[in-house]
């Protein structure tokens, strides 16, 4: 293990870039999560009815309908063809997330994300074992199972247990015992399975992942040549299997993180002290030439001739 790997995660990034640059996407993401929640709470709390409804279906400024496409899809396989309003709402949501990455929903909007992130923070803090790690594609199987159950029972099946809409609806309308479900997710992620819920099981995330398969917004490891193997990006990434193909790619292999599992949370950009990662679009596969390592003892050596390319 390199000495750098042993440093606390993000330590060099804070040293080199300052606290803000080493945390900006994390902070922006938390602000975004709070913003989307607050939009829905403005009405019930302050009587400002800009956005009404819940994440399952909402109406903004009295005109813009938004519908969760996965909820609507379950309703369709359960045997109900929805009215135009819900269909339009779902198409808008589909289009936006297909463009910016389906799992942007997971990391920037979903109210369960702060819960599982908190669980993961405590998990690391307590130094717990990673526990049960089902395969990542378990969530796809679960998504399929949810659709089958919806079709067989004629009920929008996942909404009976979905902690996302339970929590969101609970905050906006009244929570009942839904907090117990949220607590279960927290405890599951804390003790049973590291990153278990969002990373392995949640069928909503699986759906949004599929939706973002061809998304435009991507993280690229375009300066991968500068990577100093500190492993911090792997440590913070909630789906860290997506990094290696881009970061460790050799030669002309694309530096883009193209896996639909990537949530575009941008945390890897934060913690990288040498700025390997950046947000870009999926057609921008340029790779920056390796630069000489950061000036350590290079100090007084004058450059002899042109810097070799490659």
């Amino acid at each position: 293990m390199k000495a750098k790997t042993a440093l606390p995660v993000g330590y060099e990034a804070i040293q080199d870039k300052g606290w803000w640059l080493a945390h900006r996407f994390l902070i922006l993401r938390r602000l975004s999560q709070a913003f989307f929640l607050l939009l829905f709470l403005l009405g019930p709390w302050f009587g400002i009815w800009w956005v009404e409804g819940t994440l399952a279906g909402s109406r903004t400024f009295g005109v813009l309908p938004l519908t969760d496409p996965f909820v609507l899809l379950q309703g369709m396989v359960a045997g109900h063809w929805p009215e135009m309003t819900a269909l339009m709402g779902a198409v808008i949501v589909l289009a936006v997330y297909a463009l910016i990455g389906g799992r942007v929903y997971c990391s920037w909007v979903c109210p369960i994300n702060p819960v599982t992130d908190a669980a993961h923070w405590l998990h690391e803090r307590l130094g717990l074992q990673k526990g049960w790690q089902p395969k990542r594609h378990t969530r796809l199987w679960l998504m399929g199972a949810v659709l089958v159950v919806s079709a067989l029972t004629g009920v929008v099946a996942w909404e009976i247990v979905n902690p996302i809409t339970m929590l969101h609806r609970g905050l906006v309308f009244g929570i009942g015992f839904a907090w117990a479900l949220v607590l279960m997710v927290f405890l599951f992620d804390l003790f049973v399975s590291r990153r278990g819920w969002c990373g392995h099981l949640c069928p909503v995330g699986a759906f949004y992942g599929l939706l973002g398969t061809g998304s435009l917004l991507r993280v690229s490891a375009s300066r991968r040549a500068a990577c100093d193997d500190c492993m911090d990006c792997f440590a913070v990434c909630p789906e860290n299997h997506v990094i290696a193909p881009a970061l460790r790619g050799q030669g002309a292999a694309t530096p883009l993180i193209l896996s639909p599992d990537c949530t575009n949370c941008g945390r890897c950009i934060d913690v990288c002290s040498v700025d390997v990662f950046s947000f870009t679009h999926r057609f921008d596969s340029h790779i920056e030439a390796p630069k000489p390592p950061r000036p350590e003892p290079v100090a007084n050596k004058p450059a002899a001739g042109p810097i070799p390319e490659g």
Partner: protein
Amino acid sequence: MSAANAPMSPQRRRFLTDTARMGAGCAVAGAGLAWLATDSRALPAEALRPPGALPEEDFLAACIRCGLCVRDCPYDTLSLAELGSDGPATGTPYFTAREVPCEMCDDIPCVAACPTGALDPDLRNIDDARMGTAVLVDQENCLNFLGLRCDVCYRVCPVIDEAITLEMSHNDRSGHHAVFAPTVHADHCTGCGVCEKSCVLPEAAIKVLPVRLARGSSAEHYRKGWEEQDNHGAPLVDGLIDLPDRLPGPGTDNLAAPGGFEPAFTVPGAGQ
């Protein structure tokens, strides 16, 4: 080389094992979910769906539990079922008539708000809504049945004289008063629950129940002779003869007094 003696490829074995595991895991999880989903159809009897709600089994496929109907209800009648406290169909809209009944808005804003059509947009006239059916469940405590003139349920009914009428009959207790029995006519009752809300008793004697609980149903093949005869304009079978029904006692001979009652005695000096 035949398949039998070919060595099993480890990839194939792993693929099959993984698939079997996932399939079994999903079957278990799916069965649990299906159990909950089936369970979610059982609403508490006092929970009524908003106007225009599809039949319950279709409703649970159609409702995305967004709460827009709740938001657009001007009387705060509707609420969303909360997990663990309001029955298992968590997040679906309902109202409890005894707490806040449906005020039957002419423009039916809850139906207009529904994005999916779980509340049927074809419901244009609120009088056609069938949220439930009022049933006078307790004649023993209903003040009108006791011979008093409470009449509150009748007076407040938005479809007065159609959905609830007062049927007069003899008050056997006092012997010289009438009983005005509140009587629900399900054909006109919207199930708004105003009667239940207004019942003056500590526990309402008239309650709105979901139609499935409130009503029976007539068998498909039943024909009512009198209706058929009216439609036909004449007896359906020609040449029917009316046979005497002889019961014990006098005055029961239908041939002697067709359709009527023959007194068993004659009062002296009265008539013939």
